[in-house]
């Protein structure tokens, strides 16, 4: 037994981490990515190869089905922790690793017996939740904000509640509420599927996405219907799959869910959704300097340039990872962390210039990404897009070109000590922040149109090239708190 324990200790010395990042948690995510990198813990792409599920941010406890889905898919040894604040990252990871060792030898129920799993899940949740309590207190120390703290506490309780109710039929009502946005017709579909519900949280999906009627007679195996056929663009009748994509895919905008209708690997239709989160008192991280300037605060241009540079490098590394260029992606990510860590213009430029040159000169990249997701300027403008996507007025390749230009320019301007002009310089990384709607809203609005007919890999590239930031869409907690 001693030997086993040692083996487990060695084997999980660098656990595979699956990140479940909620919108509004960019700062904590950045800290998490940096910490994982410095510890050398692999950041895995799917639950199958994960040991540790790290929830970053504040998921809405009433609708955290996706997190349970991820948790169910992780084989033992496994543990989950939640991180809210960037400062809590190291302790949360330590905590997670410790509970991996404690629970290494614990029987996990199968999804088939949801009740059992559920019991497990609850136990699993306990220790990390305690850790969170501590962390939250730490966080309060920083904020000293009462309304904020009460809300967090509340959130935690809810979290427990959801766990408890997970196995019950409540999951369905929860899901119904969620699906309701697709229109009420589907409700009947759901009703018809009540029987499937018994198969566990997942059976409830059946009636989604505008074909509830079909499912009523569709063949059902192991709790799910088989794919039904539908006309494709060439006039063939082919199987069509309805798949929710996201929110926890690797290199994917945090919190984005695409409801896809797929034929083979071609996207036939796409609908944008986002993961529900608790309202936050904090401004979206990437837009912060410009938002502050818009309220009349004096914000140094150098600071804004640094944030812009890091924001684009963040988008860029995700994009490069999606196109399968790991080497360049790692460089972009390292440069991002340099910019965020406050290194001088000279140092960041030295890191960024070779990267820009290499990406700009890559003919392979042009050959592979030209023509994907073409968004002409006029269409972009009429949709309200105002950032790089409007400037580029073209395909994914052009948009990345704009990022590269802006990264180079911003990296040279860290020492600009003028002030942002609240009237003219309110354009953040994804567009103007002073409009009525956040710039990423417009990006999400144009997204489905660009995805239709795209192959899966191309769809991922298109999403990465727009890189909507769902942090901008997190509901604000209270207007007066924002000012505090």
């Amino acid at each position, binding site marked *: 037994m001693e030997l086993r324990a040692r083996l487990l200790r060695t084997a999980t010395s660098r656990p595979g981490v699956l990140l479940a990042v909620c919108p509004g948690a960019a700062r904590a995510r950045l800290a998490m990515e940096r910490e994982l990198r410095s510890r050398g813990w692999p950041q895995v792409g799917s639950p199958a190869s994960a040991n540790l599920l790290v929830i970053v941010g504040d998921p809405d406890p009433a609708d955290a089905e996706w997190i349970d889905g991820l948790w169910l898919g992780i084989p*033992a040894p496994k543990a989950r922790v939640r991180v809210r604040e960037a400062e809590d990252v190291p302790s949360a990871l330590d905590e997670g690793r410790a509970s991996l060792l404690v629970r290494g030898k614990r029987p996990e129920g199968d999804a088939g017996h949801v009740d059992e799993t559920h019991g497990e899940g609850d136990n699993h949740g306990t220790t990390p939740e305690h850790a969170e309590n501590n962390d939250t207190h730490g966080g309060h120390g920083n904020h000293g904000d009462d309304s904020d703290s009460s809300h967090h506490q509340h959130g935690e309780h809810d979290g427990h509640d959801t766990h408890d109710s997970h196995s019950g039929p409540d999951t369905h009502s929860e899901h119904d509420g969620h699906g309701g946005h697709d229109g009420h017709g589907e409700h009947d579909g759901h009703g018809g599927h009540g029987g499937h519900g018994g198969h566990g949280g997942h059976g409830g999906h059946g009636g989604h996405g505008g074909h509830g009627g079909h499912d009523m007679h569709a063949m059902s195996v192991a709790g799910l219907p088989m794919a039904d056929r539908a006309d494709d663009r060439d006039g063939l009748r082919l199987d069509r799959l309805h798949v929710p994509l*996201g929110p926890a895919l690797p290199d994917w905008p945090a919190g984005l869910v695409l409801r896809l209708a797929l034929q083979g690997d071609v996207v036939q239709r796409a609908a944008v959704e986002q993961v529900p989160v608790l309202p936050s008192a904090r401004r979206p991280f990437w837009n912060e300097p410009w938002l502050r300037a818009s309220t009349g605060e004096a914000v140094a241009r150098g600071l804004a340039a640094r944030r812009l540079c890091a924001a684009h490098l963040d988008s860029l590394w995700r994009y490069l990872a999606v196109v399968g260029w790991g080497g360049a992606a790692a460089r972009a990510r390292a440069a991002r962390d340099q910019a965020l860590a406050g290194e001088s213009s000279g140092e960041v430029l030295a890191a960024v210039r070779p990267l820009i040159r290499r990406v700009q000169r890559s003919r392979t990249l042009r050959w592979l990404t030209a023509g994907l997701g073409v968004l002409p300027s006029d269409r972009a403008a009429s949709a309200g897009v105002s950032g790089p996507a409007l400037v580029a007025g073209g395909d994914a390749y052009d948009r990345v070109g704009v990022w590269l230009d802006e990264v180079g320019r911003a990296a040279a301007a860290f020492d600009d000590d003028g002030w942002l002009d609240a009237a003219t310089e309110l354009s953040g990384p994804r567009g103007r922040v002073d409009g009525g709607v956040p710039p990423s809203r417009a990006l999400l609005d144009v997204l489905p149109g660009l995805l239709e007919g795209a192959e899966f890999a191309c769809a991922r590239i298109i999403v990465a090239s727009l890189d909507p930031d769902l942090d901008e869409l997190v509901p604000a907690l209270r207007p007066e708190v924002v000012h505090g």
Partner: protein
Amino acid sequence: MDTSDWQPVLLLLVLISAGLVLLYVIGAALSVEREPLCDVPPFSGGLGPEEHPFSRFHVRWYPVTMVFLAFDMEMLFMYPWTKVVGEVGTSAVVEMFLFLGILLAGVGYAWREGAFRWS
């Protein structure tokens, strides 16, 4: 062909199979949980699918498979052909490359019809 040539191949197959079985046994012995985790929802980002992903996949490169098949058959002739080029002489080369030329014309046609572009 000598049967003794194939002896090592067969032996190797047995050996790898045994090795793989051994690896699975070691895995079963060392893993913290011997029973597999069953009925996991397939991964697509956290939310489960609405239907079984088993489906008749829309294979849009279907025309390419047809062109490929033609060439694949051709390869059956080309392998033995490599051994006799020297003996048979010019006629072997002429015949083979005439054949390949015809197939290439087919490729050109398929290309013009857009068979190699599907997105």
